[in-house]
């Protein structure tokens, strides 16, 4: 069936808002920009609702969001800032441990900033959103092989950046 109504649209928003926002966030490193682009993506989706095929909605959303991102912010500098929560870790009570982790975390953040945008996005979709390679491949319209390749590139990059002692 082609075309969606308002209720279906609301459902799609509910299901996909966070995913799309995170996806753009991994690219831009700017949560407000990510929110704006996500708004525009859904606004655009609403405009073209008559032509939408529900079955392809997933990859359509990601493609639209990516285009929107390329259009708007491709040239601005990425400064990612993730929030880290180590409270789950048994060592977090020791100040020494916290300092070491913090120091490492800073280096990790700057390594992520330096990483190629495509590899970073896929890597973070897997690490933060906990998506399987297959799921990521489906969303981005890529093969599982390509995802594996990007993730291993990301891992190798991090390892190289972080193993250098300062």
């Amino acid at each position, binding site marked *: 069936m082609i075309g969606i109504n308002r209720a279906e649209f*609301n459902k799609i*928003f*509910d299901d996909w*808002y*966070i995913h799309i*926002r*995170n996806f753009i*966030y991994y690219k831009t490193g700017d*949560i*407000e920009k*990510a*929110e704006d682009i*996500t*708004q*525009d993506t*859904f*606004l*655009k989706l*609403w*405009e*073209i609702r*008559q*032509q*939408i*095929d529900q079955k*392809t909605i997933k990859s*359509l959303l990601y493609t*639209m969001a990516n*285009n*929107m991102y390329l*259009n708007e912010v491709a040239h601005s500098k990425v400064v990612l*800032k*993730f*929030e*880290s*929560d*180590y409270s*789950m*870790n*048994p*060592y977090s009570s020791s100040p*020494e*441990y916290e300092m*070491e*982790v913090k120091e*490492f*975390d800073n280096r*990790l953040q700057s390594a992520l900033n330096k990483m190629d945008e495509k590899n970073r996005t896929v890597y*973070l979709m897997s*690490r*933060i959103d906990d998506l399987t390679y297959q799921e990521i491949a489906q969303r981005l*319209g890529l093969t599982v092989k390509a995802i594996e390749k990007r993730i291993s590139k990301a*891992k190798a990059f*991090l*390892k190289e950046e*972080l*193993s250098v002692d300062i």
Partner: protein
Amino acid sequence: MKETINKPFGELDIEQKIQICTSALSVPQGISKEEAFKRLSEKIDTETVSQPSLRISKGKHAISRFFYSAAAIVVILIACGVIMSMLTKTVTAPRGSHIEYTLADGSTVNLNSDSQIKFKKYRFNKNRTIKLEGEAYFYITSGKTFTVNTYMGSITVLGTAFNVYARDNNFSVNCLRGKVRVDTKDSSAILTKDQGVELSGNVLKEIKEENGSPISWIEGEFFFENAPLKKVIVEVERQFNVTFAEINNQLANKNFTGSFSNQSLDIALDIICTPLGLEYETNNGHNIVLKERD
């Protein structure tokens, strides 16, 4: 992660460190999904663009993708443009500050504290209409008719300068240059240079001799002639962003003549209190209590 937690962090190998640190990563909170949905709904509901007839090709080949994205960009730009242009611009001077704002046609508006103007940005030069709450001084460049609407009356002009005061149930207009027309529900008046009217009941009455210029507030001077103490207090509250404790009836009956400046709260309070035989106390820095001097 379990197998890594038995050792101090420093002794872990690099992959384990990366594993620990990346599993603690999260995305900043940002606005909630509900808030995002609200904002989106507002945009969708105000959307007035007719549906563009866009064809989405389901083909995966490069050319259709290119056309699709190009068209998507165009549609977004048009939609954003239309929505943006419909947007109403609001300029607000909060309590304790004044704002000077230049409109698209070159006219300037000086907003007194706790005042607000609203207007449609789209083709402002063709339709110079502004909604005002509070007090403002307008210096209008010549051009199409310029209209200021308040909830008590409206002012229509060509090129001129005038001051409007529309607060609570007080409405007054002073013309400083050129000619203005003032309309309320039941009456209207045409003002020329140095004339002023205020709304008294349902009719506009001429303001006799003003004590000080009607736009002395732009310089931070506030003149009162035989004004109820309440009116003076409200102005002090606005200019210094402070609050007064409720005054009793005896004080409310007092009238004040004089002026204060918005430079110093203490001096302003002295100027108001001394001639009326009052003294003031400030509690918690922001709540001012007035009482009769013993």
